[in-house]
């Protein structure tokens, strides 16, 4: 490969890579081409590493990169792909009903009393029309993040001495000393949402993910789905449009409506993200009905671990709002000693209450 021909080949490869799902924009492609100025274009391993360093941006990209590289340049003498524990690309799953396209325009003249009824009604019992309306109402929620003390300070009447402003004051007025003071400010505290998407949670999963999307737009948040395995959907939920965000999340979640192994998936979360920082000092909300098919002892151990890391651990159970509910399912019974609060989560109103609970946590 030489000159223009080589360049076309490289850019073509970048296109193929983008097609394979690696988000490499023009800036990365440019870096890739520039990197090869400093390497040997004739050596497959140099081309391999230049592309991997410039075009990839997260561990999930690496297996796709390896596959695309082999497909484009052939196997040749490129280095063996490093063994990685990178996540496999997600398969398509129909988590949202339909294709994520927005439904028919909402009827804006719904009587206030209808809204009131909808607020209290169990999400599982909604008609398709009410469901659409619920989405509109979810989008109107205004989540306020919980707060923690920050390092930064701001001027105040009481508090610690502010040397900077005191000095400035002395310079400006020539007066001996008028003491200026400052206090600590507050910053939003991280929220972690863990949403059970197993079969038994089917009626609630869509609404809860939409709820997570609304929260993610206002609060620093990490969202993962629990089922037979753990899937992180924070990136997908960052999209502004709820339909697109939910469709992207659905594509990422491969185990929708499967069974639940809460203990194992919670462990996966803590190993992968939680212990390293995502759960540290955060308000963690687990949305699940607590039907545990795995070992309840494992779940209890993981919750104990989570309790030591997190600031607060809240468990939202859609069934907890029903009359006659007793927390006797194996999972929830094992979890109960390690929770700060067990909350209902079956209706818009209870989700509202959950937001309030998170804000005050």
């Amino acid at each position: 490969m030489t000159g223009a021909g080589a360049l076309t080949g490289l850019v073509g490869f970048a296109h193929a890579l983008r097609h394979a799902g690696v988000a490499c924009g023009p800036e990365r492609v440019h870096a890739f081409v520039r990197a090869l100025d400093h390497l040997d274009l004739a050596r497959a391993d140099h081309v391999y590493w230049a592309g991997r360093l410039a075009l990839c941006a997260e561990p999930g990209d690496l297996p796709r990169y390896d596959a695309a590289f082999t497909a484009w340049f052939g196997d040749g003498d490129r280095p063996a792909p490093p063994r990685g524990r990178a996540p496999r690309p997600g398969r398509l799953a129909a988590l949202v009903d339909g294709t994520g396209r927005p439904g028919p325009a909402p009827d804006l003249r719904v009587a206030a009393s209808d809204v009131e009824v909808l607020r209290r009604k169990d999400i599982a019992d909604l008609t398709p029309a009410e469901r659409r309306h619920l989405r509109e109402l979810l989008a109107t929620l205004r989540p306020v993040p919980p707060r923690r003390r920050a390092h930064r300070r701001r001027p105040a009447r009481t508090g610690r001495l502010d040397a900077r402003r005191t000095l400035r004051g002395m310079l400006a007025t020539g007066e001996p000393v008028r003491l200026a003071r400052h206090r600590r400010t507050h910053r939003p505290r991280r929220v972690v949402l863990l949403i059970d998407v197993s079969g038994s949670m089917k009626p609630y999963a869509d609404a809860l993910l939409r709820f997570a999307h609304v929260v993610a737009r206002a609060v620093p948040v990490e969202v993962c789905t629990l089922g037979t395995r753990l899937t992180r959907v924070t990136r997908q939920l960052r999209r502004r449009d709820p339909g697109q965000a939910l469709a992207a999340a659905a594509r990422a979640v491969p185990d929708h409506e499967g069974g639940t192994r809460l203990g194992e998936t919670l462990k996966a979360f803590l190993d992968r993200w939680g212990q390293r920082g995502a759960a540290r000092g955060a308000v963690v909300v687990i949305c699940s009905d607590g039907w545990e098919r795995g070992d309840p002892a494992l779940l209890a151990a993981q919750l104990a671990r989570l309790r030591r890391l997190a600031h607060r651990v809240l468990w939202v159970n859609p069934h907890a709002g029903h009359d006659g509910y007793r927390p006797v399912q194996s999972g929830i019974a094992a979890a109960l000693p390690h929770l700060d609060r067990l909350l209902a989560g079956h209706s818009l109103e209870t989700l509202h209450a959950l937001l309030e609970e998170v804000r005050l946590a």
Partner: protein
Amino acid sequence: MTPEELADGLDRVGYLPDPGLATAAHLALAMHRPLFCEGEPGTGKTSLAHALARALDLPLVRLQCHEGIDASQALYDWDFPRQLLHLRALEAAGPVDAEAAEASLYTRRFLLARPLLEALERAPCVLLVDEVDRADDEFEAFLLEVLDENAVTIPELGRVAAATPPLVVLTSNRTREVHDALKRRCLYHWLEHPDLAREVAILRRRLPGLTGRLAGQVAAAARRLRELDLLKPPGVAESLDWAAALLALGREELDAEAAAVTLGAVLKYREDVQRALSAGVAGR
């Protein structure tokens, strides 16, 4: 310089990079691009920066990130206590002209250079921005500005620009997704634990008194520990600690008894120690 020559240079200071890492460091140098290193704790991200500094014979400037870090902790700050004293001294000496006094207060003499400013002033150097995933989004945006320009403007003093851009190594343990805008300006490298042969070589390089046999045993045991389902699997740093502990005790072999008394150098959770002991991995 080629990637292979850089690899040799790193090798000479006791850091054994694989070809990917050597290429990454080579490109970071040649393209003046920050190198973004991600990977499990203990895969050698931070020590890469240290090794690069030694191999290239450059000073190392380290910025440790943490939650709530801001510009005055990363870039520069004014030394207020000293400024106050200086002002007091001026006043004691006689009547003070406010403007002249202010001008004398905001000079380089009273400026405290924090790591980023220090790196720009000392460049060429290696700037290590450690655990950038711990900082906040706002800090990432701020960092972006400094890395793009290789310069900062201090209102009272003017612009400070680096003559040569520092070689920047950013590390992340991936506790949080770092913003794409930052990653886009960097070369991205994902570090894995070294393979057995490389880990043995690292152990022997760093601990000259270590026999090949003991190094092999420690590296193999560390690998087995990584395959167990531990809360904190040991990194290379831990296997180094382990081998050093065995050396300090004058052990020549990693048997069950030696492992039992030194396991605290490798595993830092009670649950992990119990699991390792019950699996019998450490003392095979």
